[in-house]
């Protein structure tokens, strides 16, 4: 896959070059790279929002997509429940309740997005993405700009959901910890134009990753790419 942008001066600049990968059915692929490396651009191409690229994406025809954007992107004039039901009209009451229960949204079902904190709004966006029972789930920095404790809790809830509803997932983040906890396979992005510089498979199942396992993954990642400060915005 390759993507170039035109500068105002007219010259064309490649932001992504030779990025190629295949995800197995039900696999969670974690893409790690510094902010501004073109991760979101890659996701937008895969989601079909940007058709101006060279390359090919297969498995696309008729697939159902679920996506969590960097911002929650909920409809402010609809309640949490309606936001979910509008994109997932087929969702049953039982499925919906279970989903809202895991994400601690049950008491906020009939609240409007304006009444929710950012953490709750992110949860609602997650609920919406899972409710469509997607063939491909795309998560674009789902926990960015949240405090660590809250992000950790949401990450655990997300891990639980992914184990309950196995779905091929693309997770993009600049937070190594997040990717190490959630993904089955890590793809490290770096360079300019961006390409995949390393691939790491995590054999341990998600619910059995001890602090040591996470630490070893982190150092393995750090050996391969120089990441800027984790908590820089």
């Amino acid at each position, binding site marked *: 896959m390759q993507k170039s942008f035109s500068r105002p001066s007219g010259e064309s600049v490649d932001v992504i070059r030779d990025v190629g990968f295949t995800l197995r059915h039900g696999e969670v692929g974690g893409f790690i790279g510094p902010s501004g490396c073109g991760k979101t651009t890659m996701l937008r191409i895969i989601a079909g*929002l940007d058709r101006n690229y060279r390359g090919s994406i297969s498995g696309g025809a008729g697939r159902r997509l679920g*996506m969590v*954007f960097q*911002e929650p*992107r909920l*409809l402010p004039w*609809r309640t949490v429940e309606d936001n979910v039901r*509008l*994109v997932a009209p087929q969702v049953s009451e039982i499925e919906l309740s279970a989903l809202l229960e895991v994400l601690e949204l049950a008491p906020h079902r009939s609240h409007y997005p304006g009444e929710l904190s950012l953490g709750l709004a992110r949860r609602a966006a997650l609920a919406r993405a899972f409710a*469509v029972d997607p063939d491909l789930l795309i998560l674009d920095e789902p926990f960015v700009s949240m405090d660590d404790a809250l992000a950790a809790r949401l990450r655990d809830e997300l891990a639980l959901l992914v184990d309950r509803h196995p779905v091929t997932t693309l997770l993009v983040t600049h937070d190594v910890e997040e990717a190490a906890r959630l993904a089955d396979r890590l793809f490290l992005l770096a360079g300019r134009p961006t390409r995949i510089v390393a691939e790491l498979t995590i054999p341990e199942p998600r619910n059995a990753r001890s602090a040591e396992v996470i630490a070893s993954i982190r150092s393995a990642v750090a050996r391969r790419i120089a990441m800027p400060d984790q908590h820089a915005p």
Partner: protein
Amino acid sequence: MVRLASLVLFVGIWFVAALLAGDRMLPGPAAVLANVLGEAASGALFVNLAATLARVLLAFGLAMVAGTALGLLMGRITLADRLGDPWLVVLLNLPALVVIVLAYIWGGLTEVAGIAAVAVNKLPNTIVMVREGARALDPGLDEMARVFAMPRWKAFRHVVLPQLAPYIAAAGRSGLSLVWKIVLVVEFLGRPNGVGFEIGIAFQLFDVTRILAYALAFVAVMLVIETLLVQPLERHAARWRIRTA
């Protein structure tokens, strides 16, 4: 309570002004009310109010639907905006009277010509407001609807329309009052009934009482529409907003 006091004050000023100006120039509230009741008793009031109201609603509906469609088109498609903008400027600056007279000359003194003339007068105003709304649409929500494969009509109803609602409401608010004023001119110039027609007759007879009676009766009708229809609709559309006051 404050509104009522303000209304009482208005009637009081009217009363005093009528005493000073004399019956011929400005009849008092009592005389006007008696005239309204007399017209109501003969039934003429209701026939004329109904005729005017029907024209207002038709022209208003026409202008709002067409204006919203065109405004949305121009706000979203650059080519449509470029093509339509000069026409819009012409329409915006065309005096209402010119449109009405031309409509009557080209279309004859018919109901269709009259209502079309009113609608054309309101149309550019609606287009301008809705176009502004269409330009302010959130691309993020648009992408959300596309990613989740929302059907077109559903996305329009639940994603686009609620974002346009404040702009359409503003166009409607100012539109209803604009339309009824223009309908009166249309009736004055070329319809055989309605409030404007009655005021035309009263003008020829210098009957200020009747002019005020019909004008106030119709203002009352519009006030009822405003409180019973427009305001509840606005409250419903704004139910999700956090109330700040």
